[in-house]
């Protein structure tokens, strides 16, 4: 056999493998890359310390999570602390920037967002158990990097598109279409700086962009797994 045909056969085989990727193959690799529900469920609590960055300023931030059930975020601005917290079915916030020093109840949209954030188990990896639907849209170039675009249609009607780096299978970007009653809100988030947190790969940088540049970023200097969290911090101050 001539060398050329061997090479072309090899190329053909490679091409076939590439196109034969099913959505479950891709999710399997994504699950392996991130740790997946098995590892994610082992995270009982997580404490994230870092900063929110916007307009040349850094705002220190601490987020404390009880996997799937509670979350509290503290953000410091001009020496004042903005707090958002929820546990189970109700949430509250304090926003002294607006002059209110007492806690106010969260609106349903904020509550929904907070609940989503507290869930450390990947909806995509756990889609079957959670009754979501998935679809492999295809390959797409994201900022010069080849990705697999996977659609996750959640049970509640929200839709998420994951752009998984075709080499590492870690999400590079996520686009969401969240339904808040009559309203549908779309957003794009970019992830990087994946580091291991208790067996789970977590992005330590998330960016939001507008007009081709970053306008908002959160950077976590430290994410600790399974630290002790006093449940009292989630309770709404009276």
């Amino acid at each position, binding site marked *: 056999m001539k*060398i*050329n045909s061997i*090479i072309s056969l090899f190329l053909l085989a490679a091409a076939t493998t590439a196109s034969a990727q099913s959505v479950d193959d891709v999710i399997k690799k994504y699950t392996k890359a991130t740790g997946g529900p098995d590892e994610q469920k082992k995270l009982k609590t997580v404490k994230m310390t870092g900063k929110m*960055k*916007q*307009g*040349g*300023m*850094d705002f220190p931030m601490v987020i404390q999570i009880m996997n799937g059930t509670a979350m509290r975020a503290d953000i410091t*601005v*001009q*020496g*004042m602390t903005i707090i958002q917290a929820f546990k189970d079915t109700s949430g509250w916030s304090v926003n*002294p*920037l*607006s*002059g*209110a*020093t007492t806690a106010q109840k969260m609106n349903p949209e904020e509550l929904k967002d907070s609940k989503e954030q507290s869930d450390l188990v990947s909806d995509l990896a756990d889609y079957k158990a959670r009754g979501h639907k998935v*679809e492999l*849209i295809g390959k797409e*170039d994201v*900022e*010069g*990097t080849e990705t697999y*675009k996977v*659609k996750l*249609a959640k049970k509640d009607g929200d*839709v998420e*598109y994951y752009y998984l*780096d075709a080499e*590492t299978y870690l999400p590079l970007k996520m686009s969401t*279409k969240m339904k808040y009653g*009559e309203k*549908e809100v779309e957003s794009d988030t*970019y992830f*990087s*700086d*994946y*580091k291991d947190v208790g067996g789970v790969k977590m992005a330590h*940088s998330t*960016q939001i*962009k507008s*007009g*081709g*540049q*970053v*306008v*908002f*970023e959160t*950077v976590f200097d430290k994410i600790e797994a399974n630290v002790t969290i006093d449940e009292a911090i989630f309770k709404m101050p009276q």
Partner: protein
Amino acid sequence: MNKSLFLLLAAGISALAIHAQKITSSTIGALEARQIGPAVMSGRITAIDAENKNTRIIYVGTAGGGIWKSTNAGSSYKPVFDKHTQCVGALVIDQENPETVWAGTGESNMRNSVSIGTGLYKSNDGGSNWKMVGLDSTEHISKIVIDPQNSNTVYVAAPGPLWSDSKQRGLYKTTDGGETWTKILYTDVKTGCADIVIDPKNPNVLYASMWQFRRTPWSFSSGGKTSALYKSTDAGKTWTKMMKGFEGDEFGRICLAISPSDPNRLYAIAESKKTQLYMTTDGGANWTKKSGSMNVSWRPFYFSLIMVDPVDPQRIYRPSLNLSISTDGGESFKEASFEGGWVHSDHHALWINPNNNSHLLLGTDGGVYQSLDKGNSWQMFGNLPVSQFYHVQIDDQVPYNVYGGLQDNGSWYAPSQSVNGIENKDWENCGGGDGFWVQPDREDHNYVYSEYQGGNIMRYNKRTNESKDIKPYPLAGEPKLRCNWNTPIVTSPTNKKTLYYGAQYLYRTRDRGESWEKISPDLTTNNPKKQEQDKSGGLSIDNSGAENHCTIFTIAESPLDENMIWVGTDDGNIQLTTDGGKKWTKMNAIGIKGLPAFAWVSSIEPSPYDKNVVFATFDNHAMGDMKTYVYKSADMGKTWTPLMTEDLKGGFAHKIKQDIVKPELLFLGTEFGLWMSFDAGTSWILYKSGDFPPVSVRDITIDKNTGDLVMGTHGRGVVILDDLTPLRALTPELLGQEMTFVAGRPSPITNGHYGGAFPGGGYAGPNSSEAYVFYYYFKDRVSSGEVKIEIYNDKGELVNTLLGNKRKGLNKATWDLRWSKGPRVAKGVKVDISGFIGQLVSEGTYTVKLIKGDKSITQTINVAFPKNASRDEMKQREEWTQGLFTLQEELAFQVSRMSSVEDSAAARAKQNKALEKTAQALANKLKTVREKCVASIEGTNITGEEKIREKIGMLYYQVAAFDGKPTQMQVERVKGLKKEVEEIISEADKIYQADLAKFNAELKKYKLPEITPVPRDQWERMTKSK
């Protein structure tokens, strides 16, 4: 080693090496362009559909601007088809699964300027993602219908190619949701399927019309023996001609409507020598003649829509030149009223709410209108920027204005920058009809030359709003002037007085059109066979000027030589004079290799670097040839080199533009997008940044002051790519570096000029940034490590930190030329605005440090005040702002110091109860002083409470916000506030000296540590924020 394997590997390696340095679309992905509108007149709408169960969800298909979706009944729209062909012919929602939407590309309103499609697309997720599912060679799709009982069965009517014979025409059917297609009705290569309706109660029953039609560059023909109406009762297996009652033996385009409430009743408008409406009440077996009025018969090839009210079978809507309504089953029509405002003419799409037949959405050549009263009054959606420009031009003002003419929407201009962005209110009309070329007078900005179809050039005066007809007329005995639909009017790049105009002859004026000089003979082929437009149209004569041929289409004077003028004609001639028009030479007499004879010369671009160099694009699409033709000549047009490459897939070409700074940088406007070459045409990339769609780019110009690339698109209005500097900097050497800065245009120190004001409503196109834009390049995407940009002044102080992008290729970050931080403010119950406002930086040299993980590179930049600004005033603003900044920090220090003494005193008192009284007294005294400094009323209300902190904060904000000097009153106010702070210091000091000293004496007695008010340097260290 086997030699061939070695060669193969070597080739592979060198290919890799080249690949590593190649510019791709994503290399420049961060350089997003801005669409400045306009939406005030919007553009041609071809299809509208809404969800039956949730009519707030609307999809709008356009002639050249893609598909737009609203989820809020039209309050806002988003484009959802930007990766695909922008010309949409048909659009339909599967009402059983409303997330499924079908779109047929290639409009079927077969006017001269119509674009082409690339097949049928389907979305399963409400328009977020689309997949091409077939019919890729049909070029035009007029209608899609879904079997109401089976969503997998879909019928698609494809009239097929307008400019050539094709077997791709006909009626198509899928029964597997688009996986496979069968052509179920076909006549011949000249006859396509124009319309299809399905019986909503019995989906086996279908009606379809076949249409024979054809365009050439010089004629149009609608109608012939093969045009006919058919019916099938077996879901398309067999078809029977159903025209009993139709008058005549030759037909043109036939449009159909079935009554939803009575499906045996259908209406059909059949184009013929006497175009007529017909009605059947027995499912097509017999047809009765109805109205033949102008409402029905006007331009039937262009207006091919009729609809029946969902409830009342006698009520018919006929969108045409205007919308007409019949309430008597088509016996008579009256025009819909336009109470509430004008409605743009030329209607091609109509949606009637099936749940509420008073609610209509109408698609016109000028956008979408909504009626809530069955068409008696209308409101336009001013948020759809799908305007179709033919040409674009700019003037030399600051900011420059953009001028251009649009399909059926006249001529307009708007500033490239405006307060709040470029809003609908910023666009000024300067000509009517169909607009094409618009030229600002180069000497007097009040004058604008615009035109309407067929060479009718007007001189418009912006100040007086007067227009004067200045078109050249043939002199006695001269033949009639032949003017293209899109007649060129072009100003000279070398002589501000000169304006050219092209009929079959070239004309020149140097007195604003008061007189014209004919400076050429007939420069066209003057082929009489291509000049029979009075017979054009087919069954119904349609001689609007759209088919005028053997005309001049492009004029270009060399920027290096006033006597050197190039002319291109629509019948393929490139003509050159080098003596200002005395003698002309046809430069392509022997033809150009690879270019079909007579191909339309769409643009000629004489190089600004060398008068021997010239570029040209050719458009042969009107002969059915959609290929891109772009050529360069380096010997003044004697020989031509093709610049087409395999990667260039733009369809027919409209405009080539050579950059005015870097000769190798070329921009090519094609029917499918903007293409760029960084290597003088050796390779091309498609511009896709920010999901810029493959829209038809008809014209391109570059502003020499800003380096902006300005595009006139035929479907997305005017699009500006700000600042070409970074594109000019891209070289293979640069691309080989791991990380590097890339040059951009500098920005002066200013608060800016286009900040918020009361919004004007409708679409607002973004402004370009007045901030300093940094560009930088990463060879690879940064997947780990922080990316940021730090800016230091010449003292080494960190001025600002910008967020960094991590993408592979070019990235950008903007600096507003401010310090990131405002003054430290005294702590209170509320935040103070001044704490968030950094001052503008001073003139000088700054070091910019790009940090990527543990690596960094630096560059230095100079920043300066705006050229026209008073340096003295800018300096005064700096001084006074700095004074207020210092004062605010001094106050913060004093307050913090008092608080800490109070806290310490309280702490000591806790240690020894005997101290309580004195501690309290001391604290109370300090508190009284402190409360003069900062507002202390809590609550979310407007408390109105203003203490020194708030007064300084507001004044700081006001003085900092204006570039120039502060007012005398502001200066006095600063002085007054300074005094107030001094008083605070003195009062506090007195307390420290008297009361604190006394307390310290007591502390000493109880052997507790004394309290010292925090010294300034310690406070500085404590509060130095990270």
